[in-house]
C-alpha cells in the first residue's frame, strides 16, 4: 500500500518537474546583477577572483551563515555521537605504506591548504576548499593510527575563536561607521597577494574554522563505537 502511494507520488512529481522544465530557457538568460558586479567588483572590492568577491564581500553575510551552519551541524553531530569508543579495542595501526604515506602527506597537505586559503582572492579556491584540505591533513594520520586521539578541546577553541574573528571583522567595520561586514583597508593593487582589503583575513578565519570543525567531525565519526 505504502509502496503504491509512493510510486504514485513519484509519478506525479516526475510529470510536474518535466512539465516545469519543458520551456526552461538555458543559455539565453541575462544576468543583470551579475554583469553589474563583474563591472563594479574590481574597483569596489579589488579581488581578481570575482567569485571570491561575491562570496566574501557582496554576499559575505551568506558566508557567515554558512560557517554557522557547519558549526551547528558539527556541534549537533558531536552531541549525538557523544559516547567515545571504548578504549579496550582500538583498531590496529594501518600497514607500513599507509603509515609512511600519511606522514609524508601531512606537511604537503598542510602547505597546500594554506596556499589555497591565502590565494583565494586571486585564483580558484579559498577558505572552504583550503579548510577541507587542512582537515584532511589532520585526519589522515588519525586514519593510519586509529589508537591516537586528537585534541578536541584545542580544535573547538580554534573553531570558536575563528568564528568570532569573522564576526569581529564585520563588527569592526560597523564601529568604523560602515555597514556590517564592509571591506576594510582599501582594495590594493588588483591581482597582488596583499590586496582586496580584509578579504584574505576573512578567508583565513574561514579556513581555520572549516578545517578545525571538519577535523573534529571526522574524528568523531571515526572514534565512535563500531556497530557491527
Amino acid at each position, binding site marked *: *500500500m*505504502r509502496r503504491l502511494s*509512493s*510510486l504514485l*507520488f*513519484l509519478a506525479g*512529481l*516526475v510529470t510536474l*518537474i*518535466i512539465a516545469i*522544465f519543458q520551456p*526552461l530557457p*538555458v*543559455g*539565453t*538568460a*541575462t*544576468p543583470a*546583477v*551579475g*554583469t553589474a*558586479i*563583474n*563591472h563594479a*567588483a*574590481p574597483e569596489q572590492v579589488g579581488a*581578481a*577572483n*570575482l*567569485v571570491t*568577491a*561575491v*562570496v566574501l564581500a*557582496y*554576499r559575505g553575510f*551568506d*558566508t557567515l551563515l*554558512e560557517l554557522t*551552519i*557547519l558549526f*551547528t*551541524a*558539527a556541534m*549537533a*553531530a558531536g552531541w*549525538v*555521537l557523544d559516547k567515545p569508543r571504548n578504549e579496550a579495542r582500538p583498531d590496529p595501526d594501518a600497514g607500513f605504506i599507509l603509515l609512511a604515506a600519511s606522514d609524508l602527506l601531512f606537511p604537503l597537505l598542510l602547505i597546500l591548504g594554506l596556499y589555497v586559503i591565502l590565494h583565494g582572492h586571486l*585564483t*580558484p579556491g579559498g577558505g*572552504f576548499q583550503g579548510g577541507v584540505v587542512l582537515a584532511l591533513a589532520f585526519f589522515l594520520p588519525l586514519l593510519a593510527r586509529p589508537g591516537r586521539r586528537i585534541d578536541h578541546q584545542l580544535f573547538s577553541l580554534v573553531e570558536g575563536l575563528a568564528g568570532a574573528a569573522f564576526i569581529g571583522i564585520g563588527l569592526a567595520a560597523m564601529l568604523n561607521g560602515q555597514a556590517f561586514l564592509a571591506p576594510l583597508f582599501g582594495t590594493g593593487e*588588483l*591581482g597582488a597577494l596583499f590586496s582586496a582589503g580584509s578579504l584574505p583575513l576573512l578567508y583565513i578565519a574561514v579556513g581555520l574554522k*572549516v578545517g578545525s570543525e571538519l577535523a573534529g*567531525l571526522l574524528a*568523531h*565519526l571515526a572514534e*565512535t*563505537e563500531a*556497530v*557491527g
Partner: protein
Amino acid sequence: MIIPDSNTLLLIAALGLILIGIGGMVLSLHLLRIIFGLALLESGANLLLILATYSDRSVAPIIVGGKIPAHMADPIPQALVLTAIVIGVAVLALALSLALRIQRAYGTLDVRELRARLDQDIAAEAGINLPHSQDAPRSPAVVNAPGGAS
C-alpha cells in the same frame, strides 16, 4: 544519431540527477540510501543553479593580468552553489551521525522498521498500548539489515 546540443544535454543532466535523487529517496527502504538520494538531489539542484544564467560565450569570472574580459560568467550562482555545497555536506554529516546513533540503539536502518519502532516508543512513553499497526512489518525485533550486523 542526433545529439542534443550541449545546453539541452546539461539541462538533462541536472534534471536527471534531481529525478534520480527524488526517486531514490522515495523508493529506497534503507536510511543510508535515502541519504545518498538526498545528496544526489542536492547536486542536481546545484547544477541547475549554475545553468540558470550559463552562457557558452563567457569565460570564467577571474581577472588575469588586470584586463577585464568582455563576457565573464555570472559569479553570483557560483557563489550560491559554493554555499549550497557546504551546507549540503554539513547536513550530510549530521544525517550520517544520526544514522550511526540509531543503528547502535535499534539495530536496523530499514525505514519501515524505524517508523514502527518510533511509533512504539512514542506510545510507550505516553503510556498507550499500541495494537499492531498495519504498516509495521510482522516482527520488528528481527534484525535484517542488508549486510547483516554480525
